[in-house]
């Protein structure tokens, strides 16, 4: 039995409606409890801001394309090199750091739970292998279905049950968490070098459209009772004028779940572009945010762009090739048979570049224009918009108009005519930041029930204590202090154990992999369906029996079982 008492914590815990109460938090065996005995280890929070451990509901930290981002980028590795010290492994990398570097840096910023945004089912084993080398966070993986042949055929045949059966079988097999759709249909078209422009184009050879895929997957997600909703990277990412496609998609999302959203739309910054080409390019954050404000069934994440060097990586293969043709640096692509694809290119977002400046403004506009912070998560789509180490600056930008104005003065001079950012006075408060960086993310992922994103009795004792006293700082004026505080916790506590102190790594931890296992009941086992088996036999390059990820790849495993209702 291990016991810990965090004393004098200034707690903000939005899920339990605690907004700035100085209190003690008792922990026994990794969970939050009523009280502990006199022998408990004591940490004095000294009145500092204390939040549930951070949750990142969309990041790219592990798996085939992340690792390929490292593989192709020795120049990125030279940044961020740190020596081995104590329990800490040597680290390398800035925008695509090593597994250890990702884990340490997230931990130092108070993050304890991460969702890898894109896992190709065929290569799932790789993601799980990297998870086991990510010591300080609990991990989940959204599973890519954007170009899944079985799914597309079932949709074309109008067999909605079959869609759910294939999704359920695949999630169980690959130990995935939720459904990810990246440019649905577009990546399949990229198999022959093509793309789709929006949701009503037909996927070549499959006779379905993106909107049919999106809607069928939403229904399948609810049939399977998955904790998280469909996680969508809309079609037509990154192109001028694409906000129309985004709105067209949002307007066709039904409201199907009382507990959470029906759709999680990711990195919406990249999907809120106006204009008809790069010359007329402008922000359309307003109509997009307006639509979100009127649709409680949708949650978005920002996908904030921050200036500097990074690496973009996405399952949206055709988009990456287009971007490569603009940037001409280097380009990797990796199509995955019957399922999905991906692309990677390095980019440098410049203040002097008008398009980049507008992109920077759009992310902030979305966060400020979406009224309900539970509907807008703070992310950079790490590392696409920026590496996650930029989160503290983004928090400060959202909390301080003064900081935004100071930054705005440094961007491309024409930006003002293309965005609404300077007109937005809203300054988010501490509670809203807590929602956007943990409580809202945990709720959107459907993991509050397993004790994530809050500090209520029975919750996982994942706690972040930041070296800042809320009453003594005015974030609107002293934004530098906000950045410093969110960059380095006083303590990060994972499952009741302090894992970092003042930026120093204290333990070599062991994460838990959270995955979903939908039980489908008799008559719905697609694994024995002749057509499904035949598809494996003929078209995959691995045998069906060798496809599922064995239990031994998950060192600590938390299986969330659901009962499908057909």
């Amino acid at each position: 039995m291990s016991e810990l008492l965090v004393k004098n914590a200034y707690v903000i815990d939005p899920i339990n409606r605690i907004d700035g109460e100085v209190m003690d938090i008792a922990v026994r065996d990794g969970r939050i409890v009523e009280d502990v005995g006199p022998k408990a280890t004591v940490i004095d929070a000294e009145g500092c801001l204390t939040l549930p451990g951070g949750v990142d509901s969309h990041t790219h930290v592990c798996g085939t394309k992340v690792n390929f981002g490292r593989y192709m980028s020795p120049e990125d590795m030279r940044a961020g090199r740190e020596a081995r010290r104590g329990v800490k492994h040597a680290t390398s990398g800035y925008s695509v750091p090593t597994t250890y570097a990702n884990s340490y840096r997230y931990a130092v910023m108070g993050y304890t739970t991460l969702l890898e945004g894109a896992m190709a089912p065929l290569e799932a084993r790789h993601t799980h292998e990297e998870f086991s080398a990510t010591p300080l966070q609990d991990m989940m993986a959204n599973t890519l279905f954007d170009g899944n042949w079985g799914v597309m055929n079932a949709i074309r045949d109008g067999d909605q049950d079959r869609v759910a059966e294939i999704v359920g079988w695949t999630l169980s097999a690959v130990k995935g968490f939720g459904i990810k759709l990246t440019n649905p249909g577009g990546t399949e078209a990229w198999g022959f070098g093509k793309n789709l422009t929006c949701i009503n184009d037909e996927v070549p050879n499959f006779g379905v459209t993106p909107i049919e895929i999106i809607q069928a997957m939403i229904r399948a997600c609810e049939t399977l009772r998955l904790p998280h909703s469909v996680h969508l990277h809309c079609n037509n990412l990154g192109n001028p004028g694409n906000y129309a496609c985004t709105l067209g998609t949002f307007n066709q999302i039904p409201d199907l779940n009382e507990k959470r959203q029906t759709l999680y739309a990711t990195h919406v910054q990249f999907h809120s572009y106006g204009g008809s080409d790069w010359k007329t390019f402008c922000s359309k954050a307003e109509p997009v945010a307006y639509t979100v404000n009127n649709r409680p069934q949708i949650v978005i994440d920002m996908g904030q762009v921050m200036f500097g060097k990074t690496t973009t990586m996405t399952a949206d293969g055709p988009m990456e090739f287009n971007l490569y043709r603009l940037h001409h640096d280097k380009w990797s692509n990796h199509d995955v048979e019957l399922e999905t694809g991906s692309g990677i290119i390095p980019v440098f977002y410049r203040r002097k570049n008008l398009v980049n400046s507008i992109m920077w403004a759009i992310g902030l506009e979305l966060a400020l224009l979406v009224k309900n912070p539970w509907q807008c998560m703070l992310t950079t789509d790490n590392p696409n918009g920026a590496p996650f180490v930029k989160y503290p600056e983004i928090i400060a930008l959202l909390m301080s108009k003064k900081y935004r104005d100071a930054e705005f003065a440094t961007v491309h001079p024409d930006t003002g005519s293309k965005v609404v950012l300077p007109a937005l006075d809203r300054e988010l408060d501490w509670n809203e930041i807590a929602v956007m960086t943990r409580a809202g993310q945990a709720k959107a992922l459907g993991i509050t029930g397993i004790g994530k994103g809050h500090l209520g009795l029975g919750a996982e004792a994942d706690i972040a204590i930041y070296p800042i006293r809320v009453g003594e700082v005015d974030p609107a004026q002293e934004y530098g202090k906000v950045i410093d505080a969110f960059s380095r916790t006083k303590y990060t506590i994972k499952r009741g154990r302090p894992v970092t102190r003042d930026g120093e790594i204290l333990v070599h931890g062991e994460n838990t992999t959270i995955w979903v296992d939908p039980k489908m009941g008799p008559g719905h086992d697609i694994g024995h369906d002749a057509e499904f088996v035949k598809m494996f036999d003929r078209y995959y390059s691995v045998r069906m029996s060798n496809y599922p990820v064995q239990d031994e790849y998950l060192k600590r495993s938390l299986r969330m079982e659901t009962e499908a209702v057909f």
Partner: protein
Amino acid sequence: MIHTDMVCPFCGCLCDDIVVETEGNAVVRVDNACTLGTHKLMNASMDRLKGPIMRDGAGWRDATYDEAIEYAAGVLLDADRPLLYGWSSTQGEAQGLGVSMAELLGGVIDSTTSVCHGPSILAIQEVGHPGCTLGQVKNRADLIVYWGCNPTEAHPRHMSRYTTYADGFFLQNSFRERKLIVVDIRKTETASIADEFVQITPGGDYAVFSALRAIVRGRGDVVPPTVAGVTKEQLERIAEMCKSAKFGAFFFGVGLTMAPGRYKNVRNAIELVDELNRYTKWTLTPLRGHYNVYGSNEVFTWMTGYPYAVDFSRQIAFYNPGETTAVDILARKECDACLIVASDPGAHFPRKCLEHLTSIPTVLIDPARTVTTPLCRCQIPTAVTGIDASGTAYRMDGVPIHVKTFLDLGYPTDTEVIGRIFEKVQEVRHP
């Protein structure tokens, strides 16, 4: 007993449809594998060392695992600059332990990549890599190019599982519907079935790529009548085939990476593929030799940031092929102890390097006596992944596959042996 869907632990094709029949601890039949794979699987229990051996004057003596592991840990701990080399024919789990051990020792870890596809990686680091999984090729490709490689002999099932003879979703009769181009300096077996065989003079790869790129770009006017022994006419024909394919798949081997020009050849190949993607779909895949050499690149990369040749002597991960690669470290007589795992440098390294290996305490972890054995002071036999040990391996296209076992011969696995050496190292060098 019949074991189905086993994975062949020989080449980078990592065929996973092998059927092995065993009677007790003897393999009596292997189905689906090629001759290379069959040979490895059939002789699963033959030629193995019975237990560890240690140098005893001019000869050898038997040793216990405890003693050999103690010895290995001792020489590594004693060393100023230990080299941990090999890793291409072992499981990912062992590779990961190797990295952690190199890190703690302040040593250098390198894989056989540095003598096969190292140049491909250097090229990828400059210009990227438009690739795909092999099933994508099987289902879609109507044009295949093999350049500087001879899969018929080195990857015997590559063509039947993934390319020329493999039926796919978009090609019902692949052999008829697919075209094959082979580029090599001599007419290989693979070349004999090609629709176009392009014979280039040795060292001419770079020039031929440049000429093809020029033609694809519409600048055929700058190309002379022959380039490295290839006529302009043939180059133009090939460029047209490439542009008009629906999906082209380019494979290349050490015939390209180790030819004069090295990584520049590969860079030029990648840039040709980039160029072709402006017209149609093209991908490129290095034909990796050992079944898990790609796995060593993957594991090293997520742990250290670099795919091979990682030097921890400054406590950080440092990478500079040509300086931190095994051959260079040995040639400079820099390392003072060497652990070789699952590879046979004795058969491949320059003599100068081997001489240095014999002059320092070298420990070999390998199931059987090999050409490297005589260079070592101690050899520790282990189970073979895919036969009597299981573990992870990465196919040449990056697909990770769980390699399974069908025998139990009582040997410890590489992971176990390296884990025990690492434990001993940690007792002394505790962080």
